[in-house]
């Protein structure tokens, strides 16, 4: 399997309140279609690493290559475009746009991408909602849904543009065990069936144990990958 993501010699510093090195020479690669968990204790730098991989944080040393494309040093605008096309996000707090309906929340990233017509986008949105079992909520406002439902909508939204990589920052951290299981199974299924890569930050070792690859951080250094 070719590698879909490579991190080379990444160093990252925090400057507030004092200069502090969060990541030290982090190097690893991830294969296409694999389900990866980034684990580590609180403060080990795992979330920081994920936000670097997400292209939203560009203040680091080293290089990140996604799908053979060097992302380090690119302009913010190009990175935004890259995220839109290739990366889907699921967060711990569900982070839907509250004043938009569920359907609109799903449609926005695809409309931004501009690859499909509005009718196609709507059809795709319904398909994803169906897969995740929340199609009946489509016309509701996003903030009227339960936590579990919102997280499933968030996953559906992450999948809208057929991203290369889906990233999750503690995607199950705020859910009960039933919903956690649903989210995990969905991720598992996606990586198997769609060959989409999943990178998930978690502190749940049991969940991590069931993934394809574990990257463990300790005090900013990779101790297992």
């Amino acid at each position: 399997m070719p590698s879909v993501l490579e991190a080379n010699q990444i160093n990252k510093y925090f400057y507030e309140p004092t200069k502090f090195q969060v990541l030290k020479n982090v190097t690893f690669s991830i294969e296409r279609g694999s389900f990866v968990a980034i684990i580590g204790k609180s403060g080990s730098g795992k979330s920081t690493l994920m936000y670097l991989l997400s292209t939203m944080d560009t203040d680091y040393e080293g290089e990140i290559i996604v799908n053979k494309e060097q992302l380090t040093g690119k302009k913010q605008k190009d990175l935004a475009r890259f995220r839109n096309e290739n990366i889907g996000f699921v967060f711990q707090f569900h982070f839907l746009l509250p004043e938009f309906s569920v359907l609109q929340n799903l449609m926005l990233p695809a409309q931004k991408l501009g690859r499909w017509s509005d009718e196609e986008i709507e059809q795709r949105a319904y398909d994803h909602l169906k897969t995740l079992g929340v199609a009946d909520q489509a016309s509701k406002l996003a903030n009227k849904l339960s936590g579990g439902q919102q997280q499933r909508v968030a996953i559906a939204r992450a999948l809208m543009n057929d991203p290369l990589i889906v990233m999750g920052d503690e995607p199950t951290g705020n859910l009960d065990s039933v919903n956690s299981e649903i989210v995990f199974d969905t991720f598992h299924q996606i990586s198997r069936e769609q060959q989409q890569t999943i990178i998930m930050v978690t502190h749940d070792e049991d969940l991590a144990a069931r993934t394809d690859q574990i990257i463990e951080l300790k005090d900013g250094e990779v101790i297992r990958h």
Partner: protein
Amino acid sequence: MKDFPLIFQIARTHLLSRVKQTIVAMLGVTFGISLFIGMVGLMTGLNDFTEELAMTSTPHIHIYNDVAVDRKTILDSSNPDGFNVVHHQKPKDEKQNLKDAFQIVRVIQQDKRVLGVAPSVATQVFYNYGPVQLNGSVLGVDILAEDQMFDLRDKLRSGTLEDLLNTNDGLIMGVGLARKLNVQTGDRVTITTPQGYTMKLRVVGTFQMGMGAIDDVRSYANITTVQKIMQKDNQYVTDINVKLKDQSESEALAVIYQRLFGYRSVGWEEANATLIIGNIFRNILTYTVSITLLTVAGFGIYNILNMAIYNKMKDIAILKAMGFSAQDVTQIFLTQSIIIGLLGSLAGLVLGYLLAYGISKVPFDAGDVVNLTSLPVNFSITYYIIGIVFGMLTTAMAGYLPARKAGKVDPIEILRG
């Protein structure tokens, strides 16, 4: 720009999700613009009205023989360094007329910038009718040339200009003067000149300029009639009034005529300097108040958008994570302020029109001074265009800073919780 429909859709949803704030922000602009429209309408209406009034009494260029002051004695000029004493010196009895006036008229008539020239003879008189005796003036004119100059025909309240032409002892009298004398068209009044000459003239018509200073004292007569009561020859002319095709040239031409003919030439701007200063002050006042109002409205929008952006930090972070760039986010919020500005300004134009219409219906009795029944208001489309441009500009500027700040929001801090 290909994303504009999407950006507009997001902006619209944001605005509709907080209708109250949106309306408050819009009202700020609406009031600003409507007061601007109302004020500017009234102020320019007043300006136009006073200017029009001035134009009814002031020609574009007025040429006359100025009274010479401080005459030197012959002794002073022949013996400039000496100590000269001349006892009982009296002013010279100089004629107040313009020499070769009709030649001057012919020269001016050939000027391509000139629309019309009207020579006239003016004299102070006493009007006698029964027991009433009033001080006033008679202006001897070529009534048709005068009509071309000041639109006399529109200002007649009775009689016609031709009635005057057909007699040689006719008068067209100001309505105020006629009322005070209690004369009607057809009555004969006695006039007496300062030189003591008395003559009976028939009132063939009345006019109303709308200004007490004229209507209460002036009558028009044929130029020959006035020459007769002044006991002067038929070349005797005291004033020449000139109407130009472009009134803004009056100052420059007045200077040229003064040099050319050697008589005092006054452009209408110089003659109405106080009025023009008044207009300028009114304009300054209008624009100052309007800019203040719109600045306040602008700060309102700035505040509301700033607050909205604080409330929407999370949304901004999500949009950025989804792949919206800083520019897209800035555009979303700038679009919101422009929508607020556009709707607010349009509502302001409507409200402003109603305000101006209301003001124009306010009864206003200026008495005999000016002929006015309600406040004059200008409804020129220009000010409505200025209003909407003003409104859009202030809101765009007020919205730009918060919108740019929204674009710069760092999504990571928010997403990490």
